């Protein structure tokens, strides 16, 4: 006997993500999901963003890592609410993990909630968390062929940040080619070129955040 199932397994996470987004809509908080390889500079990006905007926007952070709370400890020093999720093996956050920590925040009191995903340029792209926008971070030392090698995360994001541009003179990184290839994968992706060290290029990124978090 044949039984028809007709179900997309990946939908289960999407349903929880949709419920998360309902919560974010109700509490009027703009939510970002930041995805990248380990070491691209996500946590430093968050620190510099918080330093620049914390007098204008109420910011909260969810940190995702397999182990340790080192990233949450760094964020905590900036005096903003942060919760660390440890997956103890899973290579990405999923919507259920995020849903479980939301009660630890006063979401109504936040303008912006930033979720720093587990460092991984592959799997996080498959799992929506309920975010309003997804940010793919690529850094200069990682190489300029990463978008074509890992297209899904760029296809599934709204923003691409090319970080560590202060190191362009030290690496064979063809910035124009990588931007062209990113646009071939996702023409609607907005690209910001930044350095979290020198803060070159940081203003357009901050402006984008201000515009979206203050709606």
């Amino acid at each position, binding site marked *: *006997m*044949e*039984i*028809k*199932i*007709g*179900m*997309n*397994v*990946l939908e*289960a996470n999407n349903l929880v993500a949709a419920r998360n987004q309902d919560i974010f809509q109700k509490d009027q908080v703009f939510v970002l999901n930041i995805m990248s390889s380990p070491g691209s500079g996500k946590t430093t990006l968050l620190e510099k963003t918080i330093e620049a905007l914390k007098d204008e926007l109420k910011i909260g952070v969810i940190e995702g890592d397999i182990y340790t709370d080192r990233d949450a400890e760094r964020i905590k020093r900036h005096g903003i609410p942060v919760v660390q999720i440890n997956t103890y093996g*899973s*290579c*990405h956050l999923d919507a259920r993990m995020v849903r479980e920590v939301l009660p630890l925040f006063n979401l109504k009191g936040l303008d912006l909630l930033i979720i720093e995903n587990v460092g991984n340029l*592959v*799997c996080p*792209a*498959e799992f929506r968390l309920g975010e309003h926008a997804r940010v793919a971070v690529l850094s200069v030392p990682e190489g300029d062929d990463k978008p*074509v090698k890992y*297209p*899904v995360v760029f*296809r599934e994001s709204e923003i691409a940040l090319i970080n560590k541009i202060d190191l362009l003179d030290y690496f064979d990184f063809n910035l124009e080619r990588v931007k062209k290839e990113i*646009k*071939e*994968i*996702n*023409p*609607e992706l907005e690209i910001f070129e930044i350095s979290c060290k020198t803060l070159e290029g940081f203003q357009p990124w901050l402006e984008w955040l201000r515009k979206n978090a203050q709606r």
Partner: protein
Amino acid sequence: MHESAMIDSFVQIIEDKVKEYPVKKVTKIKLKVGKLTCLCPGTLAACFETVAQEKDLLKDTVLEIEEVPLKAKCKECGQVFLVEENKFFCPFCQHPHIQIVAGRELFIETVEVE
């Protein structure tokens, strides 16, 4: 990788569904796996085998996986085409705005049971 977490969800769905019928065992599961998911069919099959061998319902189940190619529809000219070499633009009119219509799923089609 997270194929094992996917298999756990997938086995749960199958077990919940077949509960509605007088089933002794599942003989076949037909699964569609999209080419642009971060899931490897070989790893999925291996993880399934590991989980299934512990369950009377699933220990003789054949997992039939169909890989679904990545297809998109051009928002400009409406043509549907295979996306090859991760070139996400229309090969007919070169328009960059396309919508993916297949190739991103982990879809349980049917199960055969006794």
